[in-house]
């Protein structure tokens, strides 16, 4: 049985055999215009299937929203592709050649997949400047950091990012002293400065004021294009304001995929997730 599955995998139509890749090929291959290939991902915790045969393809440079009720597997999905949680079966490829499942968190991050957590997690004992500095895309080996000296170019880059996230007055303030919204922004800044190919953003506007939410929406939309942005969000208003394409997760697999309009009119989605009030709201919009 196992050999059959292995054979299936080897003969898969989009499989690029490892012997055909040169050793040094770390370039992300997006010839097919797809940056993330998630196929048949299954993760179970004590028998509960957090992800159940999840299939998802994300195009290079798109802004994708992932929605779903609590326990639909949104965060688990992010944990698996960033190397935090091992999965039972399935595959996750970054471009056509890079297998994400055998990488550690640090390796995934160095490949260019940045992640923002649901709870703002910045380093509170360090200043805003130092937080951004740590996230810079540089050599992250032990020796290199021990003798690290910041270059003027990197200094400019850090200042630019601090300008974008609007925390200039707080540059040298300890980040523990920032407000909730400012911390969220600082974390987004830390993602920006790392210059990732793919941004995974988990509930970016939780706890933000209406104004902050609006600015976040603007920022995320402006990022898409150069980068691929995947947003997990509960706030439907926010999703509607940024999303072109939406994926709905339900019980660990994809329930529906399409534009916001299609999703809102999908009977199945209405039934399991959006609920009655959502339908009336959607009608009004």
């Amino acid at each position, binding site marked *: 049985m196992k050999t059959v599955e292995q054979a299936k995998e080897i003969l898969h139509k989009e499989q690029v055999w490892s012997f055909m890749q040169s050793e040094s090929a770390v370039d992300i291959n997006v010839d097919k215009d797809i940056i993330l290939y998630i196929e048949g991902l299954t993760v179970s915790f004590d028998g509960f299937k957090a992800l159940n045969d999840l299939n998802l393809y994300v195009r290079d440079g798109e802004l994708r929203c992932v929605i779903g009720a609590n326990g639909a597997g949104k965060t688990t999905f992010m944990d698996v592709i*960033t190397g*935090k949680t091992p999965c039972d079966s399935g595959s996750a490829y970054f471009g056509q050649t890079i297998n994400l499942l055998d990488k*550690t*968190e*640090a*390796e995934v*991050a*160095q490949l260019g997949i*940045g*992640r923002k*957590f649901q709870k703002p*997690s*910045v*380093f*509170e*004992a*360090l200043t805003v400047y*130092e937080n951004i*500095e*740590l*996230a810079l895309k540089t050599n*992250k080996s*032990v020796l290199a*950091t*021990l*003798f*690290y000296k*910041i270059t003027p170019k990197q*200094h400019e880059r850090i200042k630019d990012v601090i300008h974008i996230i609007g925390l200039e*007055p707080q540059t*040298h*303030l300890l980040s523990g002293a920032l407000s909730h919204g400012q911390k969220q922004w600082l974390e987004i800044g*830390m993602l920006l400065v*790392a210059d990732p190919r793919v941004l995974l953003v988990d509930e970016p506007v939780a706890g933000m004021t209406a104004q902050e939410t609006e600015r976040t929406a603007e920022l995320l939309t402006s990022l898409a294009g150069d980068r691929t942005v995947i947003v997990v969000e509960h706030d439907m208003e926010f999703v509607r304001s940024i999303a072109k394409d939406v994926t709905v997760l339900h019980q660990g697999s994809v329930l529906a995929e399409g534009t916001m309009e299609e999703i809102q009119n999908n009977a199945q989605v209405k039934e399991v997730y959006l609920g009655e009030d959502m339908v009336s709201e959607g009608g009004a919009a």
Partner: protein
Amino acid sequence: MSAALTGRLSIFNDKGSRVFLSALALVIVVAGLGNLLVPSDSVFHVSTLTITLLGKYLCFALLALSVDVIWGYCGILSLGHGAFFALGGYAMGMYLMRQIGDRGVYGDPVLPDFMVFLNWDSLPWFWHGFDQFWFAMVMVMLIPGLLAFVFGWLAFRSRVTGVYLSIMTQALTYALLLAFFRNEMGFGGNNGLTDFKDIVGFSLQADSTRVTLFIISAFVLALAYLVSKYIVTSKYGRIMVSIRDAENRTRFLGYKTEKYKVWLFVYSAVLAGIAGALYVPQVGIINPGEFAPLNSIEVVVWVAVGGRGTLYGAIAGAILVNFAKTRFTGIFPEAWLFALGGLFVVVTIFLPKGIVGLLSKRKSVLDAQSTEKAEAA
């Protein structure tokens, strides 16, 4: 802006470092000259006993520094640092044993007394090379470093953290205690190594040797302080703080946190080993008692009392607590452990940042006021 940045990185810009280094220099000069130049009937004479005691405090200060580097900055609470200290001490002790030569009780030119007593007829393989000073000094750093590397690599790679790690370090030092108690190990059993005569040709009983050992301890402490200060103010230091506060987040920034932790642990263990090696010739004995879990816990108390995460706080704490211990055990020896426990409780509840935190509290209030003014303007 860039001036402020380089200012932060400069080691001597920090007031605590300046105070600490000048105090250390003052103690060296006063104690050194007071012992060697001032005649012994003068009130300004510093007795050799005091010199030895001060030298011992400096070794403990170095040990406390090594614990502060990992606990204060990286959140790794090691309750087994006494093991690295003792291993460094044993390496030095083995060299000193080989220096005795045929002046031992049994007069064997090669075998230390305890081996003759156990009827061994040749030197065990791991005692070879210790007649060379340079070899012993390499081992002083290599053995604790190697143990820390293996232990740290296994523990941090399996992501063992917090209390579990602390318990494992306790177990490590306890296991070594039991092992070194055994005569078959070849380290002198429960008597340990003692009866030393001289070090690189100088008699250990001479005042000048004692003062020299004390001054070397002070210099090594200052050097270790500067190197540690460099590490904690470098980018490596900021990554350590990130690991302490949010290890997972640091991983997602692309840092392999276990590697950072292992190398810091090794550095810390090497410092502890050097402290042990300086300690042994000054007190004249090393025995398995140094591996006692209690010793390692005491080191943590010194650091907590002084204030962790400042380096000089740990040094101040080690010296203060040991001074108190010397005094207290002279007056009322049975109560010392209770006093130590009480001190730990008081510090944890009332002074979470230790003595240093008490001093800098006022300063940070002033700083906050001045930044507010600057922002308003």
